[in-house]
């Protein structure tokens, strides 16, 4: 896809289809190691080892479960095209974790894109689900910085009456993500 954040949206939709109540998204960047790693983890229904094999096979997915689509095969391919790798772990009844590691210096690297927008859309469109987002960055100096956004913590602060899809909350989330990302990447 043109942006990795679009892949993330697609993958997260699989987690939602798997009836997850908590979706964890981690975006970890290490400039010195030349790695950008994206992990999507859920507590959904999980898959058998056989189903996991099928998920990375585009033909199985396009033929029988159209909703899964080419999302996982494309994500895997995009990581491998940069010289990175892709792993998927799943346990029935426990959930699924999927990690794609990219080599950002590769000419075939696809830009991360608007990951904050993706996260915001996921939260706003699924106000009853919980999301935990962590983004970390280790620059040339070797110092690692990170920030996170937890909808569980947000709920505790806001109380039961304020839904996560209310306009004020959506705006706050947008600004928070923007500010934290700029600070993390040293852009502010």
């Amino acid at each position: 896809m043109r942006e990795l954040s679009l892949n993330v949206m697609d993958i997260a939709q699989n987690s939602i289809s798997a009836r997850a109540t908590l979706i964890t998204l981690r975006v970890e960047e290490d400039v010195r190691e030349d790695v950008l790693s994206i992990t999507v983890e859920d507590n959904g229904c999980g898959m058998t080892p056989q189903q996991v094999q099928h998920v990375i096979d585009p033909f199985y997915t396009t033929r029988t479960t159209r909703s899964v689509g080419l999302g996982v095969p494309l994500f895997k391919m995009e990581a491998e095209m940069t010289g990175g790798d892709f792993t998927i772990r799943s346990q029935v009844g426990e959930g699924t974790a999927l990690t794609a590691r990219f080599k950002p210096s590769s000419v075939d690297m696809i830009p991360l894109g608007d990951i904050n927008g993706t996260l915001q859309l996921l939260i706003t469109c699924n106000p009853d689900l919980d999301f935990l987002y962590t983004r970390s960055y280790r620059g040339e100096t070797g110092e690692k910085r990170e920030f996170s956004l937890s909808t569980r913590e947000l709920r505790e602060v806001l109380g039961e009456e304020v839904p996560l899809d209310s306009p004020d909350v959506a705006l706050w989330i947008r600004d928070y993500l923007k500010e934290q990302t700029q600070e993390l990447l040293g852009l502010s």
Partner: protein
Amino acid sequence: MQIKEMAERCGWKLLCGKAGEEREAEGCYIGDLLSWVMSRAGENNVWLTVMGNINAIAVAALTEVSAIVLTESASLDEEAKNRAETQGIPVYSCEENTYDTAVKVYEMLK
């Protein structure tokens, strides 16, 4: 025009998917970004690309293009070849680049 006739006249080499060679070729689509092609290539288009992996075969199956033409002798991996064969999707190879190939396709479809 059948894709088989177009391939012969353009000098493309069939790599696999002989069973689908009688499909009609109507129009042409060019692209290597699979997710992009997936939502844009039309049925019975001749698809020019350099992507010869299994995901490309899946995109061809989804969009129902008439054939894949791998330009600049881009390689077709074994897994993709087997799938294209089972699916009856013709995959051709040619040495010209995508532009020159597209010009030929244009002439054929005129």
